[in-house]
């Protein structure tokens, strides 16, 4: 079984990186859930990050040194994230850190990194307050509020749907998406028929589906993650709701289609990864990811990859492992990553154009792009 072999390899890798600390490598700290409820995302993000590390090292590393990822399991819990951040900074003496974890542990460790003045890049944690920890904290993932605005443009302008139901996942991500969507929807003539909330532990949506049927919307904007979304979309279609489902990065993985099967057809999302891209870096990432994990690439894996690429570019630009120099490099950098061309604003948020992908014939495919720079501008304070 591939996944079984993978776990052994991952353990070996973690054990090796933890012990083999040598002076000829540049160390990057990496906290990620490898056990417990969030382990699936942890596995994806770590795989993406390791692919990036291997790519950089195969090309000779950075400033003549190889990159080394120091990985610790935080179980997605703040209580473990704080001592781990301390350990990475003080014992492992990493040049910088990357969070391959959720918002809660990332928010907790961002403060530790900021206090120690060590650069910290969040790969896919979305809470708006993360970068507000200070000028040493950056985010390569896109903010929920920005994605939400882009989704409103997609629904109202590109698809021409005006009567919309919003289904909100009750966490920072879902709420930020919904807020972003609502903040600009009037510009596109969208009217919200009704809003529903659900928790990310919910899998039975019968009651919500029956209610949506009565609302009879033109489109449904859903803010959930794929593992919640797949049963949701299946149950919507089984319940006879035919409105188009518009969603976001949280859906972006092959698993969503594997679970929802036929019901997934026609779902449209705003995301950062174009799966039909001819870019060799994207193609290589997709095949390598599948080879290492046994399942198709997802957005979480791509964010891990992008975060490491940004780190590598910053280290190169800084020309040393001086933490202040790396921070300054990050602040002014422009990187072509697989999730788009990334650069940071003064808050440490990323600005990039977005891809629209659609499920056709059992796979994600190119639909269009959203390049409206004004709409996609992240907050800068």
């Amino acid at each position, binding site marked *: 079984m591939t996944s079984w072999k993978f776990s052994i390899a*991952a*353990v070996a890798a*973690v054990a090796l990186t933890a012990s083999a600390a040598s002076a000829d490598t540049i160390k990057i700290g990496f906290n990620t859930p*490898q056990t417990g409820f969030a382990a699936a995302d942890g596995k994806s993000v770590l795989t993406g990050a390791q692919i990036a590390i291997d790519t950089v090292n195969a090309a000779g590393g950075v400033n003549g040194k190889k990159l080394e990822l120091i*990985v610790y399991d935080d179980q997605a819990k703040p209580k473990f994230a*704080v001592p781990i951040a301390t350990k990475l900074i003080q014992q492992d003496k990493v040049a910088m850190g990357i969070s391959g974890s959720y918002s809660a542990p990332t928010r907790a460790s961002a403060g530790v990194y900021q206090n120690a003045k060590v650069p910290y890049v969040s790969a896919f944690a979305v809470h708006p307050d993360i970068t507000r920890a200070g000028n040493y904290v950056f985010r390569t993932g896109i903010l929920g509020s920005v994605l939400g605005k882009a989704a409103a443009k997609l629904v109202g302008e590109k698809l021409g749907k005006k009567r919309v139901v919003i289904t909100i996942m009750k966490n920072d991500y879902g709420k930020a998406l919904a807020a972003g969507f609502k903040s600009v929807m009037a510009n596109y003539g969208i009217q919200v028929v009704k809003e529903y909330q659900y928790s990310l532990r919910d899998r039975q949506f019968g009651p919500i589906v029956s209610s949506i049927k009565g609302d009879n919307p033109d489109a449904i904007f859903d803010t959930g993650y794929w593992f919640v979304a797949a049963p949701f979309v299946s149950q919507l279609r089984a319940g006879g709701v035919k409105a188009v489902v518009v969603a976001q990065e949280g859906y972006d993985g092959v698993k969503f289609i594997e679970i929802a099967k036929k019901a997934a057809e026609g779902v449209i999302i705003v995301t950062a990864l174009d799966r039909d891209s001819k870019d060799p870096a994207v193609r290589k990432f997709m095949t390598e990811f599948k080879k290492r994990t046994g399942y198709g690439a997802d957005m979480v894996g791509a964010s891990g990859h992008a975060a490491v690429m940004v780190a590598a570019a910053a280290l190169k630009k800084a020309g040393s492992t001086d933490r202040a120099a790396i921070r300054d490099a990050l602040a002014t950098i422009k990187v072509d990553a697989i999730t788009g061309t990334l650069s940071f604003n003064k808050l440490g948020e990323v600005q990039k154009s977005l891809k629209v992908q659609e499920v056709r014939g059992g796979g994600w495919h190119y639909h269009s792009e959203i390049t409206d720079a004004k709409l996609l501008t992240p907050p800068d304070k």
Partner: protein
Amino acid sequence: MYEISLLTVMCFSVIFALSLNLITGFCGQISLGHAAFYGIGAYTAALFTTDGGSFWLALPLAMAVAGFFGFIVGFASLRVRHDFLAITTMGVGFLFTGFVRQQEFLGGEEGIAGIPDPGIGQIPYMLLCAVLAAAVIAFSLYVKRSWMGHAFDAIATDEDTARTLGIDVARYKLTAFVFGTALAGLAGALFAHYVKFVEVESFDFIESISVLAMVIVGGIGSVWGVVVAAAFLSVMPLLLQVFADFKLLFYGVLLFAVMYFAPGGIDSLMRMLWRRISGRRTAG
């Protein structure tokens, strides 16, 4: 420093574990929802200090609020017993998380960030936690030897017999709940100002199980056993990073193995060892 960070975690975990030991260990009232009181303490302190309140006032305030809710839940222990109480307290835990998730003023699912630093520095904060832990250990030892400790013990052994002996069972049970939950609130306040961020997942059912595991692995009712178990189990996941993939499995197996082979926990193992050593001494 990293070691200081670990020691801090150990110290407030010891307080948390001993607080449950008062209720479950001394007084025999099983609780599967103790993390709720840890959470009440953490949220109380977090709300208070983010609103500009003093950290030193936040500690007794957290104790008072947690103890107040403990008093209410204590009444439940007068109504239901044994397995019913286990599930009722488990329900209290779920009710706490279910309620917090929906409350905007508690940060909902997102939690409360930006809890201010107590402003005393990392090492003094660790020492503060250590001093408080030592005080709770001393308090536990004192209670155990006092008349109240004997009354608790009688209730834990057989409630009905205790009642016929003239012990005011209701009063002692409520006392155990108030003391135990107030101390859990203290531990929660210390936790909140260590992580500087509270969210509801930190106080879920798994956390309740974890603290119960500390009490049981230490040896139910034993003060020193629980201290050792809490100190070890609280930082075990961080120490076992090398076995990253297997540490939760190890944890589960450990819980089972202790129950299977040594239901008395570390306490009974230490006693056995002691008996062997002293036995040899008298023989030789």
